[in-house]
């Protein structure tokens, strides 16, 4: 398995501000993904973080709102821009490939927007 950490673990933010979430994995992985989990709901994929190129976004998610970086094979960031209360969710990164045998998730970042 992979050991995945996310920072911050939780935050409370004001409307209109931006928050950058970091995801770090302890070994090189091929794929990194960002998911959103709204309160009481299932997980929805935001985008695939591609190393060395622009992220691939799912329908309903755009780069201006959720810019993503992936500078190397162990690290990625997701920024939630110009936040509104509707952005209050858990944001989760996952990893796959490399020495991992399946897709593993980080502990999540719990975001509350006031």
């Amino acid at each position, binding site marked *: 398995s992979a050991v*995945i950490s996310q920072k911050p673990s939780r935050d409370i933010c004001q409307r209109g501000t931006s928050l950058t979430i970091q995801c770090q994995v302890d070994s090189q992985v091929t794929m990194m993904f960002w998911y959103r989990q709204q309160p*009481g709901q*299932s997980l929805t*994929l935001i985008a695939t973080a591609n190393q060395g190129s622009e992220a691939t976004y799912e329908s309903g998610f755009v780069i201006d709102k959720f810019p993503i970086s992936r500078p190397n094979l162990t690290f990625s960031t997701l920024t939630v821009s110009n936040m509104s209360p509707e952005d209050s969710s858990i944001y989760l990164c996952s990893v796959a490939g490399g020495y991992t045998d399946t897709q593993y*998730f980080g502990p999540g970042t719990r975001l509350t927007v006031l």
Partner: protein
Amino acid sequence: GESVGLHLPTLSVQEGDNSIINCAYSNSASDYFIWYKQESGKGPQFIIDIRSNMDKRQGQRVTVLLNKTVKHLSLQIAATQPGDSAVYFCAETSGGATNKLIFGTGTLLAVQP
């Protein structure tokens, strides 16, 4: 496979009983399936997976069954314990674990002592 609402289906079982959690998946082309357990305040934790060339796979106290004909997946937990209380999600994908996952709505398992 997308979430459908705020109210999770709930399965309530007595400690020591067997639990069966069901999942209907959406894409007939999906060939890899994963069950995750999510405890309150934590990220999803991998439980067991199965590929489409198998009908059944067993782990420690857990068994996953796959019925491709009706696009149905189930997770069986033997001798359910209080520590099994959590939300359980099935996830599907095609092409293996390095591809994006589509999640089911989730089932809340409540274990009564």
